[in-house]
């Protein structure tokens, strides 16, 4: 297993903020790995974070079958807010459909933004979402 980088302070603080929010919130590191989602997000995700744990980008972004509302075509990561925050380093918002881990189809609204630390370095992303 590859060694993991220490968690950046911004991620530690973001996790603490998310832990205290009633808004479903998901946090990734700078490589897009899922590092945390809060209790409020469990309803949409379908499972508690304690069961899921940290996941690399390629694993968690292919779950939940994200697809566009109109055509039901798969929505590539690059067009989803988390992908825009990671690759284009800007905030983004989108509505789309997912299938949660409990098998339920849900329409969600998603807003993501990049987290930049003191040296202007990207250290992760924060995503808030809710049922549309």
């Amino acid at each position, binding site marked *: 297993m590859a060694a993991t980088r*220490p968690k950046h*302070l911004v991620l*530690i*603080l973001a996790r*603490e903020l998310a832990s205290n929010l009633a808004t479903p919130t998901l946090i990734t590191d700078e490589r897009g790995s899922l590092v945390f989602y809060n209790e409020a997000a469990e309803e949409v995700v379908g499972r508690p974070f304690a069961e899921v744990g940290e996941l690399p980008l390629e694993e968690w972004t292919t779950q939940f079958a994200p697809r566009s509302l109109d055509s039901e075509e798969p929505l590539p990561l690059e067009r989803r807010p988390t992908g825009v925050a990671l690759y284009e380093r800007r905030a983004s918002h989108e509505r789309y459909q997912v299938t949660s881990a409990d098998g339920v189809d849900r329409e969600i609204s998603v807003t993501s933004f990049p987290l930049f630390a*003191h*040296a202007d370095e990207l250290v992760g992303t924060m995503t808030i979402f809710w049922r549309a």
Partner: protein
Amino acid sequence: MRLTVWGCRGSVPTPGAATVRYGGNTSCVEVSLDNGTVIVLDAGTGIRPLGQKLAGSGATRIHVLLTHLHLDHVEGLRFFAPLWSPQVSVDIWGPPSPVSSLEERIARSFSPPLFPIDLRGVPAQVEFRDVPRDPWAIDGALLSATLVVHPGPTVGFRIETPDAIVGYLPDHEPALAGAIGTRPPDWISGGAVAAGADVLLHDAQYSEDEYRQRIGWGHSSVADAVAFARAVEAHRLLLFHHEPEHDDAALDRLEEHARLLADADGLGPALAREGMVVEL
């Protein structure tokens, strides 16, 4: 490796009869590696007497590591004798800022009306370096720095040799980022640089009662310092950055309190004091 404490007072120097045992100089710790390399942690007023010693010993290359640029951690730099010798090279490391370079930020304290001599008039060969995100080496020691909870860009340092690990977090309020001890160490502010340290120098400015009145000021209670040391599995805890209002008698009581809190952990918590030497 040898550590020498030249200053462990927080916030402002406190000279006087009431503080002679723990000392009144602000943060400065000398780290001497076995190969003779000198690494200086912070440039509070304790760096002035250290500079006199280094100038007398003929040291020609010195690394100064700044955790942050609050006044009590840089106020001694202008009076650091090696800076005033053209034969000496001084590398100054500090946290990056998106607004201005380390040199620009430090230059403010080397300019009127705060100081008569401009930074350009300093005769030593001075290099300013942002601490890198990844570990780096200095003469056989592996160093790392991570941003920690304290107002403004602030890092904690880890110095690792084949023989020993030192963690240095003089200004740190980890409790602000969540309850200490309920999370894995890498989800605790400063956990990465303090993990498994043979000696951990950590902020313990307040009693628990004082801390409750000053949450968010960037400093820790004695209880939080002990909890942090326990969570990162440090082997020995030196409590640091003493509150200016605490005289020697008050600090004695805090040390006793820390020992009771640590109980059987083997942390052997002690308060840092000026002149303290720790051989590792």
